[in-house]
């Protein structure tokens, strides 16, 4: 069947949306995922004007930007101010990765004493200026879309960019990793081998990468849409996982994400939370 397209399919360069990529407290892994898109990178550059991306090029174009990808969490006073500016300069703001969407591994400080860490790690703690917490971007500014993962999945990133370009909703299901695991045809490592797996509580998106290699899911994509971490935790304990390991499992990449935070009994210093965490916008 052939029909005629009512739109003009050729996009003149001047009307291409501009893209900026920002880094906050993070390891750069999610930005690297964009650079890792090798084959598709040119196609991305064809559709978007890469106006600001220090990881790829030192050339930069002043804002405003049509779309910003934001990596990293807020851990300093400077960044707390800078994210406001980024938001003001961005028509669409997409956060990428566990740091930006949940505070990342560095959010482990949220339940500990930061000055203690400073004392142990740094020779001269007085040189370090940091907040007591690591918080997701959505705690500070409104976010248009959150892309999960530690790091994010390359295909999902391309899907989000592709969806943005044509103005449709991205296919990033909020259901569990188990659904992807079964689509892949993996046997369940939890049921068949007793291997602790966070898949039932974790949002899909990785293609069930770890269970495909007979490893349990580490929960790097954060909580699924309606997880039941208490029931999963009880089952893992029953299967012989020591309580401290259960805590470590839930409290690694997305320790500060709401349903994982309370999954195991740890004191939650609510007084340290600067603002209420917004619902995942997916």
């Amino acid at each position: 069947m052939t029909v005629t397209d009512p739109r003009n399919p050729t996009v003149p360069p001047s009307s291409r949306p501009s893209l900026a990529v920002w880094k906050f407290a993070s390891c750069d892994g999610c930005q690297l995922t964009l650079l890792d898109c090798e084959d598709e990178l040119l196609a991305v550059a064809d559709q978007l004007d890469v106006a600001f991306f220090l990881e790829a090029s030192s050339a930069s174009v002043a804002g405003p930007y049509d779309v910003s990808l934001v990596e990293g969490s807020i851990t300093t006073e400077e960044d707390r101010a800078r994210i406001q500016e980024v938001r003001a300069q961005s028509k669409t703001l997409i956060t990428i990765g566990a740091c930006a969407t949940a505070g990342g591994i560095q959010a482990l400080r949220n339940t500990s004493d930061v000055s203690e860490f400073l004392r142990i790690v740094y020779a001269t703690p007085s040189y370090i200026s940091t907040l007591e917490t690591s918080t997701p971007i959505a705690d500070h500014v409104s976010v248009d879309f959150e892309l999960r993962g530690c790091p994010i999945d390359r295909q999902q990133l391309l899907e989000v960019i592709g969806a943005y370009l044509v103005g449709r909703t991205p296919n990033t299901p909020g259901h569990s990793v188990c659904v992807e695991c079964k689509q892949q045809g993996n046997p369940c490592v939890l049921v068949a081998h007793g291997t602790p797996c966070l898949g039932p509580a974790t949002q899909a998106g990785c293609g069930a990468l770890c269970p495909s290699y007979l490893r349990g899911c580490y929960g790097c994509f954060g909580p699924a849409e309606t997880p039941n971490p208490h029931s999963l935790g009880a089952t893992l304990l029953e299967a012989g996982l020591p309580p401290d390991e259960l805590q470590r499992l839930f409290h690694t990449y997305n320790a500060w994400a709401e349903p994982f935070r309370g999954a195991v009994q740890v004191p939650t210093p609510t007084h340290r939370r600067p603002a209420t965490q917004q619902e995942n916008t997916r």
Partner: protein
Amino acid sequence: MGGSTLTPATLIVERDGLDALIGELRAQHRTVLGPLVRDGVITHGEVTGIDDLPIGWTEQQSGGTYRLQPTGTDEIFAFSTPSESWKRYVHPPRALMLRARREGPAITVETPRPEPEPVAFFGVRSCDLAALGILDRVLLDPEATDPNYAVRRSDIFIVAAGCSTPAATCFCASMQTGPSPTSGFDLSIAELKGSEPLSYLIAAGTERGAEVLGLLPGRSATAADHEHATAVHDQAVAAMHRTLDAADPPRAAAAPEHPQWNDIAERCLACGNCTMVCPTCFCSSVEDTTSLDGNHTDRTRVWDSCFGLDFTHMHGGPTRTSIASRYRHWLLHKLVTWQDQFDSSGCVGCGRCITWCPVGIDLTAEIPKLARAATEVAP
């Protein structure tokens, strides 16, 4: 049934006969899919001879637990339900439905279909055979035929295999779907457990099955062989302790607000494993993906689960927000409204949803509780 007098309806073979059967199906250019051990479970995959089959393996299944175990015998069919059903082959997890391409002002739309591929399913359990029958009823409905399914289902040579060793999670006898296949196959194998040498009674269910049977090395079955097969069947039935009383599901449906649903929801992870492993759960969603330049669009059908929020996402949001409402929907559709829709239960008693539920939720344990509650509330 085979009508020709030259082709036998039953045959007794040994291992070499089964090997010859796989060889003959492959000689017919069929891809033979059968049970095999992979990643610590018995699942399905391509088999090229009997050495690929789970010889000497069985498994222990219970709510939330599966463990592969050696039998110490050379029985081939001493296991029960493989971890996966045949759903993956007839109704694959991803299927391309539509492909659109834009070139200049023209948009071309294609609806690709899979190529018909001759396959053989080897060692199909009776419950899984019943499940294929259910999928046929749903997906080959003349008024709404799934064209993908129709192609994939069009040329499958089915070799069924009766169960001698049901798992603790099996309840096919109570669902009247097993443990011995009665119809829907080209050939059906019964392993004569304990026979010396270990032999197999093969029965033909179709003319083409009888033709293949005529090519295998073996001898004709005696009355004693048939008695042996019946004894294995009876032992399998006696070994099955799980049941589901057909009168109970409607009673459970009459108690939609019972607190037991919330008790289940406290344990249920909403992970969707039960629906993924169920041989009759056919639900899928449709995904549109576009290339970055917007010139290519693929529409793909993807396995979905009623345990996800998106499953009921409509204007204004999802309608089944609580886990309790999603579990209730799944169970009552499977066991009750399926009857109204498709004239049968949606459950064949394979027990997979019990084994592969990470928290071991067991429908055969929940249904009587819900049913009992209903009768107590409304005597």
